[in-house]
């Protein structure tokens, strides 16, 4: 390394502490509202009830892993219908494309749990330690009783929030009131306590200490979202053509140099309110989660110095170029409605409509048959050929049902479940318990004469008033030649 001496090797970098300053404004209020809604959804949802009758749980949203059922209000998903969940994930992906191409990293700035909980933690921090400057001083101050008391209070509240967060998570996987009772009685499953502990730890550490480090170093979304932005996507833009060159303080701008300086007075309010500690005036960057708090801060300053708002504002890269060239600003709606976003919206609604249609028309009664492969057929003493099947009848209704299993095709065949072979029975009645699959081993007997592989179908018919039918294809196998 010939020129190593003039390069300072710094492989690892200490985290630069961020003390974001409190700010008020339109976007701050929007963030409060979104935080209230998202946190309310998260904490309240497991406690909503939904009556499904005596055979199913009454929790509105429940992921019942033990019984392999997923309940969401009127919808119940079985494991074989997992494609609905896959469809929801595809919709979430395309929804992210849509939002990102239209309004940039809005997910990061407003709705991401990391953002929401960090915001909440920072609010607690300001409540205990004071605003930016007080926090800064406290951090530098030597450890004393006051600092210890403040730190313990802050960490204690953080921990309470973290426990509530981890605690709410497990309620999605079991009956919430019962589980809460069990948890408090130290009687719940170890996995419940384990999940709470892990989520408490991640909430406490990620929300309290890692914060913007998660966004910058750990999270893949910033990279992916950056790739999905285009020149028409809204990003938080410092309008350098209006702000530069920066003036240094109000007095200077009032002097003769007014004509030479831009609107930016270099007050650094945009930097001090930034939760990731960046300077937006350096242009778009990975650290910007587009939370728009710098817009609020700058607007306030602009109002104070009597300049129009929006020195820092949501704008697309294309509009930035146009405005830099002197064109007037365009309405935002033009950016939101363009072929790319409309295409995403159509795909998104198309998948949603298809899933709703599939959900509305899915069968609630189903039959499938698995043939014994070893041996495929058995020759009985009177020459009859017997095949054995494991027939499964799926009853997706939340009540027990009596059904009749029959055969379609295979003329002259008989069906029985064990014991002596009947002379001419082709149907079988069974009770299928509520919301479950009944498994029944059946024997099918037919004459030796016929195709080596004869297709037929098992049928199922509900015997109650509501009715309903299903069929499952099967094959009857015979030996290739009689000895």
């Amino acid at each position: 390394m010939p020129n190593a001496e003039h390069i300072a090797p710094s492989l690892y970098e200490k985290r630069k502490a961020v003390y974001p300053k409190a700010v008020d404004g339109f976007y701050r209020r929007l963030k409060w509202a979104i935080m209230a809604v998202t946190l309310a959804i998260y904490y309240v949802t497991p406690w909503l009830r939904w009556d499904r009758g005596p055979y199913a749980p009454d929790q509105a949203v429940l992921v019942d892993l033990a019984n392999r059922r997923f309940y969401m209000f009127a919808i119940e998903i079985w494991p074989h219908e997992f494609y609905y969940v896959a469809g929801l994930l595809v919709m979430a992906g395309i929804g992210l494309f849509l939002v990102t191409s239209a309004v940039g990293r809005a997910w990061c700035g407003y709705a991401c749990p990391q953002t929401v909980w960090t915001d909440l933690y920072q609010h607690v921090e300001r409540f205990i330690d004071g605003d930016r400057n007080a926090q800064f001083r406290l951090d530098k101050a030597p450890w004393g009783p006051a600092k210890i008391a403040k730190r313990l209070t802050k960490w204690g509240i953080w921990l309470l929030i973290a426990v509530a967060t981890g605690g709410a998570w497990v309620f999605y996987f079991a009956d919430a009131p019962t589980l809460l009772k069990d948890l408090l009685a130290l009687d719940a499953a170890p996995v419940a306590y384990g999940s709470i502990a892990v989520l408490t730890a991640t909430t406490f550490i990620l929300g309290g200490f890692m914060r913007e480090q998660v966004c910058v170093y750990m999270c893949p979304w910033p990279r992916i979202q950056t790739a999905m932005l285009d020149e028409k996507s809204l990003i938080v833009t410092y309008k350098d053509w209006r702000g530069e060159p920066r003036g240094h303080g109000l007095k200077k701008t009032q002097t003769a140099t007014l004509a030479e300086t831009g609107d930016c007075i270099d007050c650094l309010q945009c930097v001090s309110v930034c939760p990731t500690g960046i300077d937006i005036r350096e242009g778009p960057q990975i650290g910007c989660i587009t939370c728009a708090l710098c817009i609020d801060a700058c607007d306030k300053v602009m109002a104070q110095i009597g300049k129009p708002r929006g020195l820092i504002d949501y704008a697309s890269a294309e509009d930035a170029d146009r405005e830099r060239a002197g064109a007037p600003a365009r309405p935002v709606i033009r950016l939101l409605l363009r072929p790319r976003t409309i295409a995403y919206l159509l795909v998104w609604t198309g998948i949603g409509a298809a899933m709703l249609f599939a959900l509305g028309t899915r069968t609630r009664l189903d039959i499938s048959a698995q043939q014994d492969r070893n041996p495929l057929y058995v020759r009985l003493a009177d020459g009859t050929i017997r095949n054995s099947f494991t027939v499964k009848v799926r009853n997706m209704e939340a009540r027990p049902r009596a059904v009749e299993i029959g055969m379609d095709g295979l003329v002259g065949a008989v069906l029985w479940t064990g014991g002596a072979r009947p002379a001419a029975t082709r149907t079988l009645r069974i009770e299928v318990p509520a919301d479950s699959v009944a498994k029944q081993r059946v024997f099918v007997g037919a004459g030796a004469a016929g195709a080596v592989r004869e297709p037929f179908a098992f049928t199922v018919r509900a015997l109650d008033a509501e009715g309903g039918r299903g069929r499952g294809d099967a094959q009857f196998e015979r030996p290739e030649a009689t000895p």
Partner: protein
Amino acid sequence: MAEKRIDEATGTQTMGHEWDGIEELDTPMPRWWLWTFYASIVFAVGYTVAYPAWPLIDRATGGTLGWSSRGDFEKEMAAEAKTRAPIMLALAATPIDRLPDNPELMHAAVEGGRAAFKVHCVQCHGSGAAGSKGYPNLNDDDWLWGGDIKSLQYTIEHGIRNPDHDQTRMSLMPAFGRDGILKPAQVDDLAAHVRVISGQEKPGAAARRGAALFAENCAVCHGADGKGLREFGAPNLTDPIWLYGGSREDIAATITTARYGVMPRWGEKLGPVTVKMLAAYVHSLGGGEALPALGALPVSDAPATPVADAAKPPLADAAKSDAQR
């Protein structure tokens, strides 16, 4: 050689490599990342001390926690045996002819038998119990020694043609041809007759001669109509199921040299519970027969259990005795 420099736009050092004008910035990693690296080293050292890790000449270091996968396995097996204990006790206490009365216990027996079958029986009878030449298919309804669950238990327990065992299933067909009882031409006539009664050939002169020979030599065991006699394990010769083949050549070969299929007696090796489970499994394959009326049962050495005891639900009973211990 890599040429490192400071990138002007960002003030960050480059990695020193260039690909078609594209350079990579050497952005420093966050310090906490370094800490997780150190922490993983500490963890790795601790892990190698606590768990088996370092290879030695003939084994590896044991680790201070004494953990081993074999130990885990033994723990799991012990736990499994404990959960199974009440079922095993109930099976031991239930006479085999009462097993079908208790569907839950019967189901447990069938599943246990399925597992035991895979270990002890598939070598001859095949994994699907379909048998092969010389080894009976256990799925069909044609039984040499009886297909009710009690007869199956007896057969499995005592085996077939076991030497030095009084209670084994035993019969010996004479080797009519080899021992000179019948001449080769007579053997062929007899084979023709067997082909006729099994519906594979039309009656002819040879078959008529064979019918007379059959009545004289074979009917005592196979019955005058050739439908067999389970007392001697003599097969039904009129059905389409052939253990050693139903062609003229196969039948003639069987008459000439006779067949002596053998099966080990499993009672001593596997114990009564496993034998019961195997009997239940074989009975469940589709060819199982109902028990004959009382009094007609063959002699068996099934443990004599008082009727009052057996009438109790065995599972609950066993669970209670398990809890008391």
